[in-house]
């Protein structure tokens, strides 16, 4: 994948046997590492493996990017969270942004297998960041692409308004950056299309213990990890979520910077 987007396939037979679309893993890279939540992008019960994709943005993801094939992670826990609701809805609009396109396609596949017509929208910052377009085309009835700067496909997601005026959708599934999920939810709301968003708040344990992933949905406090990760996009308080996601930003930047200036990992790939 381009631009330090990395796909991991890990051997975890217990998890592979149970994983379903929409669920996530908690990955602990090493004894001093963080617990990072990562959405499952595919699984193979026969091979006993699960996969997840990530952007190398912070210290932990950059460090993960330095892992070589055959290396061991300290721990992988899962599958966590509730699986996506997969059944025959009719015409489904699946919108994926950035790295979350990988897990979205897992859902696209499941929705197709359940007999739905699926229109997939892929979003990225620029053309260079667009991923998995070929895979999306192979499994969807139709694919649209959009970039923030218009360097490829539609510019922004405003074209969705016209699409929704022309075509009737029974359900919308959005996985991507918070602002994208917020914008799509706002677009679908006047059309009354049930819209499911996958929230990715900060988590630590990922199993209901710490409460850092609390989000407000329909005016009620919910835990992203055990009540979600999927919620009604029209009921979600995105403004609060954006603020909560930023609470540790200075520390995250500091950690990343210190790691890079101290030489990064031994493989040298992420040297500053």
């Amino acid at each position, binding site marked *: 994948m381009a631009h330090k987007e990395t796909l991991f396939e890990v051997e975890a037979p217990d998890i592979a046997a149970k994983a379903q679309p929409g669920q996530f893993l908690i990955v602990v890279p090493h004894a001093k590492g963080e617990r990072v939540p990562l959405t499952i992008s595919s699984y193979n019960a026969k091979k006993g493996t699960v996969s997840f994709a990530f952007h190398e943005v912070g210290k932990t993801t950059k460090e993960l990017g330095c892992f070589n094939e055959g290396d061991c992670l300290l721990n992988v826990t899962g599958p966590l969270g509730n699986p996506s609701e997969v059944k025959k809805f009719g015409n489904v609009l699946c919108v994926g942004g950035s790295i979350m396109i990988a897990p979205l396609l897992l859902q696209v596949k499941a929705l197709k297998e359940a007999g739905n017509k699926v229109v997939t929208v892929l979003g990225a910052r620029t053309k260079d960041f667009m991923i998995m377009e070929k895979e999306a085309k192979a499994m969807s009835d139709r694919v649209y692409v959009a970039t923030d700067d218009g360097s490829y496909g539609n510019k922004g997601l405003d074209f969705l308004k016209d699409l929704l005026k022309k075509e009737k959708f029974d359900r919308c599934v959005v996985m991507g950056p918070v602002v994208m999920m917020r914008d799509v939810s706002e677009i679908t709301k006047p059309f009354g299309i049930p819209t499911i968003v996958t929230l990715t708040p900060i988590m*630590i344990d990922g199993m209901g213990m*710490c409460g850092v992933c609390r989000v407000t949905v329909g005016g009620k406090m919910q835990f992203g990890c055990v009540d979600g990760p999927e919620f009604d996009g029209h009921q979600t308080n995105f403004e609060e979520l954006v603020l909560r996601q930023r609470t540790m930003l200075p520390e995250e930047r500091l950690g990343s910077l210190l790691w890079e200036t101290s030489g990064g990992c031994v493989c040298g790939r992420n040297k500053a």
Partner: protein
Amino acid sequence: MAETKPKPKLNKKAVEMRKQEPKVRARNFNEVALGYTEEEALEEASRCLQCPKPQCITGCPVEVPIPAFIKCIREKKYAEGISAIKSKNALPAVCGRVCPQESQCQAKCVIGKMGEPVSVGRLERFLADWECDHGFQLPPKAPPTGKKVAVIGAGPAGLTVAADLAKRGHEVTEFEALHLGGGVLSYGIPEFRLPKAIVQNEVNYVQNLGVDLRLGNLIGRTHTIPELMKEGGYDAVFIGSGAGLPQFTGCPGENLGGIYSANEFLIRVNLMKAFAFPDYDTPLRLGKHVVVIGGGNVAMDCARCSMRLGAEVCLVYRRSRDELPARHEEIENAEEEGLVCKFLAAPLEFYGDERGWVKSMKCICMELTEPDAKGRRGVKIIPGSEFTMDVDTVIIAIGQTPNPIIQRTTEGLQSDPRHGTICVNEVGKTSLDGVYAGGDVATGAATVISAMGAGKRAAQAMHDYLANKK
């Protein structure tokens, strides 16, 4: 003529245990209490009257043979002493440190009626630390029974059950959801009260008994209980998943940045070692003015961690000092380290700055009402007594309830709809055949030793069940 034995001189004062100086320890995460030297232990052990009908044992939830191990100390037979404890208690280094002895064994000590009771906990710790320095001995194990047991959770209850059943020859697999064993001993109780190296020793001991510990395995998700019993071939299951679900106040503004549940705060600091950030990767943002809401041991732990991280801490508790549920010793320690308490006050609302970070909180004053039938005093609001405090971090330590994942994924398992606890009988049997539960998941948040006591009883009941099972 009857010979009169010379009466032993009774020393009414217990031998004090040395502690780090408050000013020093309030800035580090090293253990506060330093333990007895051999001389101190011998002196304290000499105070025990070796009662023919020892009352202390009746005060211990796991019935440790207290006079017997103290006798061993007196005779300097330390290896024998630690085996005596371990015949009943698999985690003495933990219990010697965090048990509320003052309301258990030591409350029953006969000398306590005349002076200070024998310091059972300190002596237990002395032996446990002696063993740690001299190598762990494994007790004899019964021959294999061919029965398989699944234990869910590697906290105090689960470790006790796993150790007991492994010693009796059963094949035990212990499933732990987190990436480290120990449960609340690892994620909850801070390093300065219970060093994590000691917890790891106790976990290793249980593993050395033959228990297969599987980390990062969340029962209810990775496997379910019905799957364990049908496909996994387990003959019995023990649920010791603890009380891990944090309670919140429900006050407006609670989702602002800088407002932590006690669990989040303690998991960051203890399990993930955020106090050593950036050497460890998990961060913690702590302001200068921290308010801890609550009055239990967990609240004290949060307050004392915050002070060690350089903050000024104010505890806000809705009852008065006399009603604080925390151990007396912990309250004293915390106050010596600089804790300020605001009693008879409760939060109403939190206010944030433009970045969504908490900056102040509105509280209201309370007054105590007459004691209820159980003798616990309630509180009521004093109208018009609102006041505002400037804060930049709030830690909510008002209790935990059991995590609902197992209850939701196990059909037929009865639980209390109000408290979320799993319903059990006096030996820990649940509504499902072969499934037992104990510790916080059955009682709601309580102490380490009460969870171990429940584990002890459940292990006996499970052993009997397995013996009768074809």
